[in-house]
């Protein structure tokens, strides 16, 4: 292992050894190593199996663009699809390769490679279509699922992440040479600046290569540390390291994720990652470029790597991936690698360039000649061969002769692309550069500046000029930076996308997308099948649709397509790069909004009483409501509901109704306003009385209901359903502000200021008289649907005589902080009369027996008051109210509308279920005309049988007829359609 180490490297701490496991085998690396650099130190080159064909794959790059080296981190909740080329190792880290079975070396799935005609371009589409609909589900899908894929999802996952917001003037993305110069020129200006880099070392290309010899006569390392020090000590610039900008949204809104545990094991109780949400006036993109690969036969073999990546392993990580490598290039980017290799004394085994001798950089040419490196100009690699690793390559030289070179390593360079991913996310437009053969930023759509290679400016000698020109808008002093280079300052390239193979074998493939296993043959096939539009081609072949989005290969695909179609690349166009730039974990996005903090929980003022009295809770919106109160742990919900509801009918019950929405409405025009909002007329109501009211949408459909209490013409209190409180208040605000701004009216939510307790049952009066002895609860003094204000032990309370159960009842409104006192009084005084608390399920049963609807359960946004038989609630003399005109629309006056009815099974013990369809025939056949469905159904201890509410076509005229409820087993239950009221039809109880 030691012979591959370059121990003079400054970034790797060679004195700090780190042990980790890969596929169960223990290896050692050093502090600062990525998984990839540590494994390369150990001469491990095979890292995974490919997605579709299970071909052996190695490390292709040294960064985030990596298509192959995705691993599962067992020691971190089994986190899958982690890029081995960026993830740093720590002591005790456990890593597994992905997509192989039974092991990485012997993988059964690689047989897919031999059967590759089974997986042609458009495979998934073709398979979905035939030959028979069950083929996919029964045969293909299970097999493909097992064979194709990436890592396994994590287990028992609970990562901790947080969100952080920034509002800054300038955000610099990328702290390489350009980013550092830009930041340096902004030091101690009045701009607040964020400088973001993905690495933990700023400097980019200065750290990753030997291209630059000196900056302002300092070594690159010295210049970086001095500059970073100046930036860190400035008053206006903040540096975020280990932070990747993944999204560039509208109005200069950036999303960036920061890894808080780089090179150490994430702690369970500490924030693992921070999601930065950045709003900025100006974005400076100095995020550099990405080298691309080349397509030829078996260009995916372990042992093949990009030139700049090889150099980065040497310079940034102090490791030689191989001591003897062959280089193949069509551009100047390979020069720096040759320089670095010779400097370290590992001269390349051969240098192959598709360009002619006179087009190769003179410096590079001299270097090769001086060091006696075998040089092949005007030459191409026809293919690479080997078993599970590279063993030899075939080179076609300028005379057309084919030479075999034995080698275990090959470095490739197919050109460089500005990293335009974020720029295009920002909706910036690109333009094809025919000279540099790449897409470059052309027109920004937002306040965006691109610098250096990110802007397609590949000339080192123009760096300061470009920065000074583009940053001139900030009115800052220009800087002069003098660069001395080890390589030529300009970028030159000659077109080469693909080398066609000598002869085709089944095993040999020429890849265009390594992660998704797309071959150049797939591209040809797609085009011959007519998918010649680039967006179609992408989806048909899945080219560049992997998690790497084809960072090293998508431009190559455009080049190949443009040649095949004989079109300019600009005419072929480019597919859209989509956010995120690189995979972003759900944990980071969720932040603190997960598990118990996912949604706020609302609890009533006496919630703790319910808890200590054994209530089982139900979620109603965000509210926790007691569902039922089992008397012991053996009592089932059904038993509890039967007991509770029987007790309300025979004695009395009390419900915590505090979740009901309460809105206070005040103002000179409060009466006129409510007359417009609700269907009812409130004009003739006396102060101190209340009314059941309906609210419609403008389409005439029931939106909410509640009780309106009139204190005076200028002061009302409305209740709403638990779920509708916010919507109703919002609707009132909207109309008050936008339609009737001339009305003097104000409203406010008082839902949480007051608790509400509903006592009902025949013994209610006995109990409530004991709780409030000074109040006269006689029918004469306190009639049905009236309310009164009282003081109780210095607590102002409001008592409303109303009922949602059909029994005589009162609702008591108490300020929340006094609620428990009153509730306990009621419970204590009620004991001798058999009072019991009851939950929402019993409430639902009782109101259904009485035929009272629940908006949202018995209605669904397509039910008018007429459909519910609530014509009496419509203030017909009123000129206008929300939805009034809609009640005479041709659709709402139709005869065959669905209407509310009651349902009783003929066999009274037959169980009905919500959602069951009501039909007229006993036998179910197709097509089966359906009348409607059951909206609520219950087992009633009072009636002694099951019953339901339903909305069915023409229901009101079908009352008294027989029908059937369908079941999923295709059996039917005979039922009778009845009036939707089952208990106390004469309303004698309410006024008793």
């Amino acid at each position: 292992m030691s012979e591959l180490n370059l121990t003079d490297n400054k970034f790797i701490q060679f004195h700090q050894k780190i042990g980790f496991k890969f596929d169960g085998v223990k290896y050692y690396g050093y502090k600062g190593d990525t998984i990839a650099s540590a494994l390369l130190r150990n001469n491990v080159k095979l890292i995974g199996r490919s997605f579709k064909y299970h071909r052996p794959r190695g490390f292709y790059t040294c960064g985030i663009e990596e298509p192959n080296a995705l691993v599962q981190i067992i020691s971190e909740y089994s986190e899958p699809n982690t890029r081995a080329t960026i993830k740093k190792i720590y002591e005790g880290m456990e890593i597994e390769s992905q997509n192989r079975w039974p092991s990485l070396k012997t993988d059964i799935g690689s047989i897919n490679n031999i059967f590759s005609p089974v997986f042609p371009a458009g495979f998934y589409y073709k398979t979905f279509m035939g030959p028979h609909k069950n083929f996919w589900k029964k045969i293909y899908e299970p097999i493909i699922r097992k064979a194709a894929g990436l890592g396994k999802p994590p287990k028992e996952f609970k990562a901790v992440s947080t969100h952080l917001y920034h509002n800054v003037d300038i955000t610099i993305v990328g702290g390489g040479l350009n980013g550092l110069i830009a930041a340096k020129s902004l030091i101690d200006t009045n701009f607040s600046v964020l400088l973001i880099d993905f690495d933990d070392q700023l400097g980019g290309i200065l750290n990753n290569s030997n291209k630059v010899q000196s900056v302002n006569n300092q070594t690159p390392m010295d210049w970086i540390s001095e500059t970073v020090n100046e930036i860190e000590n400035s008053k206006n610039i903040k540096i975020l390291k280990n932070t990747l900008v993944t999204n560039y949204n509208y109005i200069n809104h950036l999303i960036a994720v920061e890894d808080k545990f780089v090179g150490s094991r994430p702690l369970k109780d500490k924030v693992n990652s921070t999601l930065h949400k950045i709003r900025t006036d100006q974005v400076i993109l100095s995020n550099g470029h990405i080298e691309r690969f080349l397509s030829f036969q078996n260009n995916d073999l372990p042992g093949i790597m990009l030139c700049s990546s090889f150099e980065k392993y040497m310079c940034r990580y102090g490791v030689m991936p191989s001591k003897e490598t062959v280089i193949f290039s069509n551009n100047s980017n390979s020069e720096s690698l040759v320089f670095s290799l010779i400097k370290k004394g590992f001269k390349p085994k051969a240098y192959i360039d598709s360009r002619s001798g006179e087009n190769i950089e003179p410096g590079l040419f001299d270097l090769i000649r001086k060091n006696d490196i075998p040089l092949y100009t005007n030459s191409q690699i026809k293919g690479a061969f080997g078993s599970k690793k590279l063993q030899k390559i075939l080179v076609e030289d300028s005379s057309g002769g084919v030479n075999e070179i034995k080698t275990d390593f090959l470095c490739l360079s197919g050109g460089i692309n500005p990293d335009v991913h974020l720029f295009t996310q920002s909706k910036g437009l690109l333009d094809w550069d025919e000279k540099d053969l790449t897409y470059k930023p052309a027109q920004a759509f937002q306040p965006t500046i691109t610098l250096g290679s990110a802007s397609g400016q590949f000339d080192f000698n123009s760096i300061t000029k470009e920065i000074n020109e583009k940053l001139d808008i900030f009115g800052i002093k220009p800087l002069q930076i003098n660069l001395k280079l080890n390589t030529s300052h300009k970028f030159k390239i000659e077109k080469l996308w693909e080398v066609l193979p000598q002869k085709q074998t089944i095993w040999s493939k020429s890849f265009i997308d390594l992660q998704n296993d797309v071959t150049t043959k797939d591209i040809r096939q797609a085009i011959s099948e007519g998918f010649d539009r680039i967006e179609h081609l992408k989806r048909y072949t899945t080219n560049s649709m992997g998690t790497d989005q084809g960072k090293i290969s998508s431009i190559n695909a455009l080049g190949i397509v443009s040649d095949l179609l004989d079109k300019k690349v600009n005419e072929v166009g480019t597919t859209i790069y989509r956010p995120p730039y690189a995979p972003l974990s759900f944990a980071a996005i969720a932040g603190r909004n997960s598990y118990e903090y996912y949604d706020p929980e609302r609890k009533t003022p006496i919630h703790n009483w319910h808890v200590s009295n054994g209530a089982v809770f139900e979620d109603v919106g965000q509210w926790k409501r007691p569902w039922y109160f089992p008397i012991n742990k053996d009592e089932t919900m059904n038993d509890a509901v039967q007991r509770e509801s029987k007790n309300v009918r025979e004695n009395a019950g009390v419900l915590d109704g505090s979740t009901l929405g309460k809105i206070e409405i005040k103002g000179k025009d409060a009466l006129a306003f409510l007359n417009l909002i609700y269907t009812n007329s409130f004009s003739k109501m006396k102060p101190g009385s209340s009314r059941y009211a309906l609210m419609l949408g403008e389409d005439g459909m029931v939106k909410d209901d509640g009780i309106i209490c009139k204190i005076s013409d200028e002061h009302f209190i409305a209740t709403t359903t638990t779920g509708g409180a916010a919507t109703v208040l919002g609707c009132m605000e909207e109309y008050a502000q936008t339609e009737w701004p001339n009305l003097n009216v104000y409203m406010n939510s008082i839902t949480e200021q007051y608790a509400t307790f509903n006592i009902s049952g025949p013994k209610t009066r006995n109990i409530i008289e004991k709780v409030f002895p000074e109040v006269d609860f006689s029918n004469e003094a306190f009639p049905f649907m009236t309310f009164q204000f009282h003081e109780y032990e210095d607590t102002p309370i409001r008592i409303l005589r109303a009922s949602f159960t059909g029994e005589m009842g009162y609702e008591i409104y108490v300020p929340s902080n006094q609620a428990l006192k009153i509730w306990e009084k009621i419970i204590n005084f009620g004991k001798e009369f058999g009072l019991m608390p009851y939950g929402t399920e019993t409430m639902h049963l009782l109101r259904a027996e009485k035929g009272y609807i629940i908006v949202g359960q018995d209605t669904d946004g397509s039910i008018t008051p007429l459909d519910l038989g609530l014509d009496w609630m419509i203030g017909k003399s009123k000129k206008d109210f929300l939805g009034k005109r809609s009640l005479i629309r041709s659709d709402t006056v139709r005869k065959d509308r669905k209407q509310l009815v009651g349902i009783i099974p003929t066999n009274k013990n037959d169980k009905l279920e919500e959602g069951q369809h009501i039909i007229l025939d006993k036998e179910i056949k197709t097509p089966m005309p359906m009348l409607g469905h059951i909206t609520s159904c219950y087992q009633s201890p009072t009636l002694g049988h099951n019953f339901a509410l339903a909305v069915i076509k023409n229901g009101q005229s079908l009352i008294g007829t027989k029908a059937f409820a369908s079941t999923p087993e295709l059996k039917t239950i005979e039922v009778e359609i009845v009036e939707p009221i089952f208990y106390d039809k004469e309303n004698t109880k309410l006024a008793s």
Partner: protein
Amino acid sequence: MLVIDCPYCGPRDQSEFSNGGEAHVKRPDGSAEIGDREWGEYVFIRANPKGIFYERWVHSHGCRKWFNCVRDTSTDEILKIYKIDEERPKLDSFKNNVKTPSGEPNLGSGNFTVKK
């Protein structure tokens, strides 16, 4: 995500607001003289143009105030924000040279349906 300049509170993130659809839609009163068609258009029909659009927003997690906004739906650029009782700005008062992301003209394209 947009930044919306609430006329009462100042610029805030879009997440504090709710969109209220097309602005300046006049509500007919509920009397029976209004025909089904006219009423139906008020209830169900809204413009959905590519280009300049007059729309309503409410600062629902802020001051709860409604206000109007002119937005170019092809670029998401907010051209003007004004209070509910202010006059509707004229369409030709907006000079807009921003190219749409797809490169199409932002005015005068086939689906430009906003009422002039």
